[in-house]
């Protein structure tokens, strides 16, 4: 599997896992899949889109019509097609606005020279009980979602005994930073890497990322991927991640996931 396919497939598997384990709606259609959680803002995505169709007006229009009819969620994540300009301008024509752009990045076990297998970080824990989980959710909601949109119930269903591992960093006993790994075969994806705004710039994000990387490479993981926001991209490059592709995040502005 090439790196771009790995970066894309782990994201899709992550959403499928979240939908299946979280008892959510998951529909695999011919040209895309979608997951919907009517109780919470996450996960509500149209994903696994056929990239060949992203620059075809009829396809974009039909997606928009179905969103308006509430058949499918109003959020879309996709690997960008070659002709990004046409894609984004067509999407905008039908009300789908680009609200973010992620950089698809990866690091292999061989490239991760500085990973230290036995490094001990007293301020980082793996989430194993409800108190830790609530702290983890509080940090993610405050720093990634800006409000209480990630519900505890679904995260609890996902992390117990599965391929998801949640990590939580404390500073002076306060939970301030998070990361999550999703391991699938020899591929792991890192998600929900977040630091409270008041504690940014102190290296906590780097520490939580490195911690998750170390734990993954201690298992059978050979390649780690992530989807970086513009804010985190520089930090991941310093750790050793390399860029392979771009993802567009679109929203039909104002449309609710409900």
């Amino acid at each position, binding site marked *: 599997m090439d790196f771009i396919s790995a970066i894309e497939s782990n994201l899709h598997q992550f959403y499928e896992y979240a939908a299946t384990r979280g008892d959510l709606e998951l529909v695999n259609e011919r040209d895309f899949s979608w997951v919907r959680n009517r109780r919470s*803002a996450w996960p509500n995505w149209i994903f696994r889109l056929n990239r060949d169709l992203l620059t075809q007006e009829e396809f974009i229009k039909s997606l928009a019509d179905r969103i308006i009819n509430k058949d499918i969620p109003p959020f879309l994540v996709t690997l960008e097609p070659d002709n990004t300009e046409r894609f984004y301008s067509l999407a905008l024509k039908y009300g789908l*606005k*680009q*609200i*973010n*752009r992620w950089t698809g990045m990866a690091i292999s076990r061989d490239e991760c020279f500085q990973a230290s297998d036995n490094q001990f970080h007293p301020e980082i824990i793996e989430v194993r009980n409800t108190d830790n989980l609530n702290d983890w959710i509080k940090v993610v909601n405050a720093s990634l*979602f*800006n*409000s209480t949109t990630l519900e505890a119930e679904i995260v609890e269903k996902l992390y117990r005994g599965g391929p998801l591992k949640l990590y939580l960093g404390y500073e002076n006993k306060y939970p301030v930073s998070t990361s999550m790994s999703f391991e699938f075969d020899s591929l792991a994806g890192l998600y929900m890497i977040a630091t409270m*705004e008041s504690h940014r710039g102190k290296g906590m994000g780097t520490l939580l990322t490195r911690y998750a990387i170390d734990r993954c490479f201690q298992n059978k993981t050979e390649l780690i991927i992530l989807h970086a926001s*513009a804010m985190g991209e520089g930090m991941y490059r310093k750790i050793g991640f390399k860029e392979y592709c771009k993802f567009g995040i679109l*929203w039909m*502005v*104002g449309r609710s996931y409900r």
Partner: protein
Amino acid sequence: MKEEEILKSVQEIFRKTFDKPDLIITYSMSPRDLKKWDSLNHVILISEIEKVFGVRFELQDMLESRSVGDICKTVLRLKNSA
């Protein structure tokens, strides 16, 4: 268009978007100061600003406009470059 005029119009958009008819905004106001100003309401806000001023925020503009002052400066730049 002057910065003060932009601020006045932006204030009306804030009042409508956040359903706060008496809201007074300042250049330094950011999402920290307004509970409902989350990432999705930010997009709604920018979309309204685009409509009212007839400008188009690029993705970078949208992500970097994290205070009222940033928004007003971006509107001014886009209006002047139109």
